[in-house]
């Protein structure tokens, strides 16, 4: 059953067509990879799904209902969460607070309750703290709970972004180059985390990645973009040997690593 359906999606920036007539289905609970050369339009695609950009034309449906036109925060509330290619943490807030922000829609607090410090407010707060800590523990960052997010190393920051996204209780998690800047060992740990999240929570995961090892290992379905267009789609084995993909993206040695 498909959870996310994209129909003829097009995005133009002035004269530049960043996404052109893209259609795809993402199966519920699957891990899907979106790959393609730099500038192919992968991040742009994510941006449209999450409401950051409005499509020029086409439709995006979540569980059969269109989410085009929704503001990013509303998309988040519908259950789509994401990480960013260029890390966007709340740098001077603590690691725990970053995750707590992610729980925004799941904390019920009124203005008055907060100002008057009502018991219900306190309860909500301590629930949120504990929950956020549990998430940190899950992604392996609990030792940094009270650190400022900006002081974390690059890899830890990428993980924290995932944790924060998890806190919004998503149905679909979009990861934009989660392994960028990680070495093979760290990439491996990340791969495990992604699998674990999918398996334990039934999350649907869509990821953009240039690390072919990770992509081929993890994804059940791969979509290849080039110059804004979808040039191929299929299971890893198909993509690996697709001549178009090798030419545009993988290159000789890329194809070697992969196979």
């Amino acid at each position, binding site marked *: 059953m498909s959870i996310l359906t994209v129909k003829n999606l097009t995005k133009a920036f002035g004269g530049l067509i960043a996404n052109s007539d893209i259609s795809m289905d993402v199966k519920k609970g699957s891990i899907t990879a979106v790959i*393609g*050369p*730099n*500038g192919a339009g992968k991040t742009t695609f994510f941006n449209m799904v999450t409401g950051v950009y409005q499509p020029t034309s086409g439709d995006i449906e979540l569980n059969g209902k269109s989410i085009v036109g929704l503001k990013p925060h509303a998309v988040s509330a519908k259950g789509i969460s994401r990480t960013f*290619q260029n890390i966007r943490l709340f740098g001077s807030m603590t690691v725990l607070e970053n995750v707590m922000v992610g729980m925004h829609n799941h904390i019920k607090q009124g203005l008055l309750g907060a100002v008057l410090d009502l018991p219900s407010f306190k309860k909500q707060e301590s629930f949120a703290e504990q929950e956020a800590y549990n998430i940190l523990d899950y992604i392996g960052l609990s030792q940094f709970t009270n650190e400022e997010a900006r*002081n*974390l*190393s*690059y*890899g*830890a920051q990428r993980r924290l972004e995932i944790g924060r996204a998890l806190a919004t209780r998503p149905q679909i998690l979009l990861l934009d*180059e989660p392994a*960028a*800047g*990680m*070495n*093979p*060992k*760290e*990439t*491996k740990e990340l791969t495990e985390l992604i699998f674990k999240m999918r398996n334990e929570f039934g999350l649907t995961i869509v990821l953009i990645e*240039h690390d*072919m090892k990770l992509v081929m290992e993890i994804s059940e379905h791969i979509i290849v973009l080039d110059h804004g267009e979808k040039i191929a789609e299929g299971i890893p084995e198909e993509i690996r040997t697709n001549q178009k993909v090798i030419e*545009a*993206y*993988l*290159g*000789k*040695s*890329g194809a070697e*690593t992969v196979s």
Partner: protein
Amino acid sequence: MAEKILDLQNIDTFYGGIQALKEISLHVDAGEIVTLIGSNGAGKSTTLKTISGQVKPKSGSILYNGTEISNRAPHETALSGIAHVPEGRRIFPKLTVKENLEMGAFSVKDKRIVKERMERVFQYFPRIKERLSQQGGTMSGGEQQMLAIGRALMMQPKILMLDEPSMGLAPIIVEQIFEIIKELNNEGITILLVEQNAFQALSIADRGYVIQNGKITLSGLGKELIDNEQIQEAYLA
């Protein structure tokens, strides 16, 4: 034997109270490719920044052709022939591609020389020539990386320091970049390469250092390190 063109001795570098480099000692011989590998936050970028003067070491010395350069301001270090291609490329987004290149040759007064050097860059990166009047920030990731290296080459450096040039790039581009690095080295430029992509880095490097938590933990010839078990386990997975 080739002489040490760059020699770091017992470098300690701090960010505020946090010590990022602990007694780092390493050297680069003229004409070598040396690579520095290590996990996130190990201190690779900090090492390069310390060399180029962006952060000042608290103690230790950096000898460049035998001269102490650890107190120099970044622009002075650059003037003396050490080019640093920073992490994340750092193209000037609102300057045109041509202006970005010209910035690389900022210290050169003679316009003819600038022109000559630019032609050389075009030989390595024909793509750049097609995009001269485009704004730097609108280039795709791979193009930006090429521009960043090209910009550094405009300085005609003796040493080229590259900080994770393959990050975020499509495999096909990564392949090209490593080719170019080899080519540059063949032309006589000494290279200090920081990479996550340990396998590829070590396979083109003459020598390599492994840095962990701000300390050098291993060093050796590139080929040796590839076969080293510890490295196999930690970085080559």
